[in-house]
């Protein structure tokens, strides 16, 4: 049972345009949502997070939106750059997992930004 889902395996956008990566979840008992970025042959690196009590968090070119009623979050990258080409993982932390830090990950979306 996939509690965190990224239904788009891949996304291709033109440099300078907006990239929107989507993530859906089935469990209301998550208190934090995170996005990770992964380059080939490297480990995932933390990108941005959002608390379940907020609906938006922004960090430079990256903004995460949380729609709790739809159990949906999205990552917006504006403007997209070729260096953003990577696999993006959505992750969620269960309420009560704060004392273990366990995260549940989505399947990942491969973003390609074309010059």
């Amino acid at each position, binding site marked *: 049972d996939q509690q965190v889902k*990224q239904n788009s395996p891949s996304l291709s956008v033109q440099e300078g345009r907006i990239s929107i990566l989507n993530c859906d979840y089935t469990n209301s008992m998550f208190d*934090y949502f995170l996005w990770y970025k992964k380059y080939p042959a*490297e*480990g995932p690196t*933390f990108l941005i997070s959002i608390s379940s009590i907020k609906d938006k968090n922004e960090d430079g070119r990256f903004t995460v939106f949380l729609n709790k009623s739809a159990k949906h979050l999205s990552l917006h990258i504006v403007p997209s750059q070729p260096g953003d080409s990577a696999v993006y993982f959505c992750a969620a932390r269960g309420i009560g997992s704060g004392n*273990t*830090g366990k995260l549940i*990950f989505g399947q990942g979306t491969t973003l390609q930004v074309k010059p």
Partner: protein
Amino acid sequence: NAGVTQTPKFRILKIGQSMTLQCTQDMNHNYMYWYRQDPGMGLKLIYYSVGAGITDKGEVPNGYNVSRSTTEDFPLRLELAAPSQTSVYFCASSFRGKNTGELFFGEGSRLTVL
């Protein structure tokens, strides 16, 4: 700081062999984790530890064992390797006081079982 260091980076095993994936972190993090990544499946939690001497199972623990004798080290043991254990393994750590849930990952260990 080196962060999270995993060894080996690559390994090929024969069915039935055993091996240990090493993981060490120098950030004095309380929490450590082992995830595996299979194509199209995201990362699945194998085992985790909230401190030295304390370990617990994740989503996919079968065929693996762990130990946590020190804060720094969290080795993952594969007993009787099977083709289904072919995967990329990631070790991660986090600080208990970090309320945003951020994990720090190693570079990964690619294991092939033939």
